[in-house]
């Protein structure tokens, strides 16, 4: 089975590989896996006060399609509002990368990773909003 040119391009020149500080309050981290194939995908987003994703990084251990799916996802996420990012569907990734049916689960993994990262960021935000004001920040 041949990979599409777009998959090969992302595989050979993956965009936004790396990590963000998972403990930072404005960073959301999603780590998901597909145990049948032993794939792991870590996707991180950095979100500004307006809810816009200003940076996205990924690390994926898996096949070319899994790497391409997460690389593409980070490209789409950058500059996008989290509300819009949450609407990204795996089928859009399948279409963009021309993934064959046996590789659709890679795009599902990427969608799961996006959702997990946003959920993590929302939890952190809710915790910050719900906690009493930090005395050090008071004038």
């Amino acid at each position, binding site marked *: 089975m041949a990979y599409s040119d777009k998959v090969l391009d992302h595989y050979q020149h993956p965009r936004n590989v790396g990590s963000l500080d998972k403990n930072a309050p404005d960073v959301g*981290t*999603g*780590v*998901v*896996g*597909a*145990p*049948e194939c*032993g794939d*792991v995908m*870590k996707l991180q987003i950095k979100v500004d006060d307006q809810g816009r994703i200003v940076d996205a990084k990924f*690390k994926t*251990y898996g096949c070319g399609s899994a790497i391409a799916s997460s690389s593409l996802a980070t490209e789409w996420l950058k500059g996008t509002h989290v509300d819009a990012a949450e609407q990204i569907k795996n089928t859009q990734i399948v279409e963009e990368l021309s993934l064959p049916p046996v590789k659709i689960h890679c795009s599902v993994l990427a969608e799961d990773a996006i959702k*997990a990262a946003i959920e993590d960021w929302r939890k952190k935000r809710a915790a910050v909003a719900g906690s009493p004001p930090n005395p050090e920040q008071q004038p």
Partner: protein
Amino acid sequence: MIHVPAPDPFTVFGLPRSLDLDERALESRYLRLSRDCHPDLHRAADTGDCIAVLQRAAEINDAWRVLRDPWQRARALLELLSPGALDRHKRLDPVFLAEALDLAEEVARADAAAAPALRARLQAALAADFAALRDAMQRGDCDAAARVCHASHYHQKALADLDAKS
């Protein structure tokens, strides 16, 4: 969905549904069963008989492939005891997955000097996985056993990647 051939491999071999099978007894049983339906020794009387013999031989080979590998045997057993348990527990703990990712990076970076220690660590992790699996099965906790099966896959893959490098 894991494919368990019907009839299940334990039935094909006429063995109890158990995680712990004696490997030597298993192999001699395989050889005997294969001989019993070997087309050279077992002349088929007609076409229907011939097909039945071939089907039986295929069943024996499929069952052998599953039973001889302790992890595949465990998965088949789990699927028999609690159908769908493996499918229901695919979502693994993110902390474990993050560790699996670190491990994969470590394997990718490992040079010839670092490989033996890393290999020993992965083998120890797999042994611990199997002990945890046996423990869960003995408790009758198929859900925990399914999670261990999935988690072990990452250790198996890391070990295979490490072996492929040398």
